[in-house]
């Protein structure tokens, strides 16, 4: 019951935010959200909601998927809100990959946008110059990101904590310069990417479904949703397994982990490669959706955006990346006066999170291996 109410409120709010056209509307929405949040916490509604959400995890996931489908249907012919929705889903997918690295095993990857870019550029080259099926190309984008990531493995394994992060920062800067001077990859102008096609379905074409006309972005939202669901299941399974326990041990105490037989290097390699694979696939799909990529989309600053989504959502909780990605991507688009200062906004967001809610919007809870009620041994 509280779950249903919360989901409806959330749906209404996201519909209003995506559809808002003037800044006054957005600010009005802020006010409404604040009032709802205050009332909810006064009535102890948030507390019981948190408990119910943990108990009925499957219901929450299904409600989220249905909610996104409803949003897609509501905006069926508006390009821009659908493009935003698709971007949110694909950025969230990339964050899920980073979540394995940062949230579980503790590698801070400040080159997220670079791996996102490797996926997108691989797609651009393969889709324009070969006749490979596009689904394979998407996979190739992920594999390429994972392979290039292996170059960073040695320094990442040899360093601990913040030093590993420095290595990834260096890589992010290097990657952008490499793209800008590389004429075969389009230099600063970037590359065009043909739209995604598979099994005779061209996602770049609008379609008519049940007499209603849909924007071609609706295709991409649907596809991004499928991709996102697959990534989510994958990340959840990593967390809820012996691998997840081992990764958490590596993050929290490397010495205790090695004394109990856990190979530090193995966990870090699995997390780094798997994470980059997800980021790369998300980047590949993003490239196909936007039809055009340039080095400016994959700067160090964009990597920071990915990391700030992770921080805002709650490190280690895969569910948190969704509201975080939505807020961080949609707000600057809706508030034009912020556009120029968007990095200021991200910086402020991070400082406020660290000050007032260090665990993020949806903090990570205790691991539950098999959360379906019938096989939860706690019952």
């Amino acid at each position, binding site marked *: 019951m509280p779950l249903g109410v919360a989901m409806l409120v959330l749906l209404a709010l996201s519909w209003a935010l995506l559809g808002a056209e003037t800044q006054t509307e957005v600010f009005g929405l802020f006010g409404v959200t604040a009032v709802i949040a205050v009332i909810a916490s006064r009535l102890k509604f948030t507390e019981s909601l948190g408990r119910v959400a943990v108990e009925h995890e499957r219901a929450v996931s299904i409600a989220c998927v249905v909610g996104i489908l409803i949003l897609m249907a509501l905006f069926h012919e508006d390009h821009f809100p659908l493009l935003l929705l698709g971007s949110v889903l694909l950025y969230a997918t990339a964050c899920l990959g980073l979540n394995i690295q940062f949230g579980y095993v503790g590698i801070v990857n400040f080159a997220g946008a670079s791996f996102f870019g490797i996926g997108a550029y691989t797609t651009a080259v393969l889709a324009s110059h070969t006749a490979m099926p596009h689904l394979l190309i998407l996979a190739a984008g992920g594999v390429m990101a994972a392979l290039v990531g292996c170059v960073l493995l040695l320094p990442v394994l040899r360093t601990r904590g913040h030093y590993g992060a420095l290595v990834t920062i260096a890589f992010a800067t290097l990657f952008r310069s490499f793209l800008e001077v590389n004429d075969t990859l389009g230099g600063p102008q970037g590359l065009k990417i043909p739209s995604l096609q598979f099994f005779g379905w061209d996602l770049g074409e609008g379609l008519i479904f049940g007499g209603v006309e849909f924007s071609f972005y609706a295709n991409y939202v649907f596809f991004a949703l499928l991709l996102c669901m697959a990534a989510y299941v*994958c990340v959840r*399974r*990593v967390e809820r*397994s*012996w*691998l997840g*326990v*081992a990764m*958490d*041990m590596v993050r*929290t*105490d490397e*010495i*205790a*982990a*090695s*004394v*109990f*037989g*856990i*190979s530090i290097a193995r966990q870090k390699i*699995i997390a780094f490669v798997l994470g980059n694979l997800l980021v790369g696939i998300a980047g590949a799909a993003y490239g196909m959706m936007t039809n055009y990529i340039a080095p400016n989309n994959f700067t160090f600053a964009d990597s920071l955006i990915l990391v700030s989504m992770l921080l805002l959502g709650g490190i280690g909780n895969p569910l948190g990346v969704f509201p975080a990605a939505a807020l961080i991507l949609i707000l600057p688009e809706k508030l034009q006066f912020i556009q120029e200062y968007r990095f200021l906004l991200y910086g402020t967001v991070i400082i406020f999170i660290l000050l007032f809610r260090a665990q993020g919007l949806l903090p990570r809870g*205790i*691991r*539950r*291996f*098999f959360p379906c009620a019938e*096989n939860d*041994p*706690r019952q």
Partner: protein
Amino acid sequence: MIPVSDEPLLRAEKLTMRFGGLVALDALDIEVRPREILGLLGPNGSGKTTFFNVVTGLYAASSGTITFEGRNISGLSPQAVYQAGITRTFQRSRLSLSLSVFDNVAVGNSRMLDHGIIHNLFCRKALLAEYERTVEQVRTLLATFNAALAGKLFHSAAGLSMIDRRRVEICRALISEPRLLLLDEPSAGMTHDETAELMDDIMHVREKLAPFSVVIIEHEMNVIQRTTERCVVLNYGKKIAEGSYAEITVNADVRAAYLGQE
């Protein structure tokens, strides 16, 4: 698997550990016999914990050899030493506080758990069976120590009292049924009664499992007196005495270095 009883389970020969100019272990010879409880005594900085760190592979010895069940284990990685059947606790609690009690204990059983990627990601049915088995195992082991603790299986370790954290740490070291358990000052930060209770529980579990050897570092002399069969006393990384509790307490060198003159 149980070695012939006159053959020691663990034997350190001429074990030396240098940190720059400091000699933490100086040509140390220690034997641990099968099924015995050995006390390791000595003043602070005498090399007791260093000995544990060298045996478990955290430090590579400067020279000397360690043999475990007839096999040379010197220079092995901590992971390989664990696989061979040696586990330990730490003087300062090393639990992962953000994880649940179950996670913390289950990690001690990683020798028996399948960490394969395919198994963990795609064979969820098999994983579920393995998981339920492990939950039962962890619950039973925790219940041996404290019934209330077994009820906190899925609580975060951060909410536990000092003695419960110690218990969880000892369960983590016991769950893989080791051949040798190294206890580093189990009484640190606890009262006399709590320590006594903890030691009784360990002895109790020990009777249920295949009997294993224990090396215990301890400053509480009554713990040593009650539990150990033999003691080794270290000072400046050298062995200065060896024998039963009664023997070492009257040893003149030990009184001078550690127990103090009366």
